[in-house]
């Protein structure tokens, strides 16, 4: 195999391997790991961190509030943080931690939590 072919094989393997890093993690497990700390085990915005917070995290079980948010808006809030949708800096950007696929899984899970869609 010449070096060009080898490079191509390595590059294709890297493409396959990268999204597989956390491909099997469900939206529910991602939520438990990254979101519980502020949004709470019951997804009601009452996480263990909120006592000294100036703004309460979004209640994801509130179907009225959540149905007013589009999937795109939820995606942006998770990926780029609260500031990106004119909300609190307390919601950090998760784009450096989660892939787009994982964020889409989270958005789908949020729709399950609020039993609402947009």
């Amino acid at each position, binding site marked *: 195999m010449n070096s060009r072919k080898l490079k191509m094989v390595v590059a294709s393997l890297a493409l396959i391997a990268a999204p597989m890093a*956390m491909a099997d*993690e469900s939206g529910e497990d991602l939520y438990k790991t990254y979101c519980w700390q502020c949004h709470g085990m019951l997804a009601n915005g009452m996480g*263990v961190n*909120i006592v000294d917070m100036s703004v309460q995290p979004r209640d994801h079980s509130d179907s009225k509030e959540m149905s007013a948010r589009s999937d795109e808006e939820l995606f942006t809030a998770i990926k780029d943080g609260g500031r990106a949708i004119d909300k609190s800096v307390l919601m950090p950007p998760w784009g450096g*931690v989660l892939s787009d696929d994982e964020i889409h899984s989270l958005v789908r899970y949020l729709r399950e939590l609020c039993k609402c869609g947009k």
Partner: protein
Amino acid sequence: MLFKTRLKSIGVVAAIAATLLSSGVSADSGDKILESSCVECHDLKGAGPENLTELWALKGPNLSYAGNKYKQAWLEQWLAAPTRIRPTGMFYGNHIKPGTDEDVIKQESLVKHMALSASDAKVVAAALMHRKAKSELITPGAYKPGTISLRMGELVFDKFRGCLGCHQIEPGYGGASGPEVYTLGNRLQEDYIISFIQDPQAWSPLTFMPNRPLKDKDLQKLVHYFRALAKEKF
């Protein structure tokens, strides 16, 4: 004269040999303790969790890069008299429960760290300083010593970046899912702090610490702030 010089050289050689021997013995006995008593809860060699199930199962910090992370003097005193640094343990999700209002800490599920004798703490701290995995992530001298007022530091930490959401800046004030930061200046090496905040997941894969792009100027200010906080008497 010649006899005296010879005697002196023998003395020097003996002193060097004794030093080498004792440091060798210290590192060896420290490693022995690490391998027997610490390995059950701490990863001493691996790179970190590969999936969320492994992340949730962590019982203590990864020590494979302890020599790049901790300050030796702090390690030595903490190992002899450990205190809780993470109010909700390693993976917070294992140590919380729904409360009347917000989720609360499940104190009964938190495990106290064992205390070592002063002599064991010394040799273990020395052995830990030799564990330097991930050195490629450290830029020596990345932190440029400087100062900041506590007030301005808190503005950067809380108002501008929201870090208070997860970290306490004094006992009982701030979030609970991350480690306290009011002892950080005594606990961690400054160049490590800079590197960790820049890319937490490179050190601690899958960690629930967000990865925020920060300018070097802000990173420096944060470390100035941690150093100032560590001087406070809480």
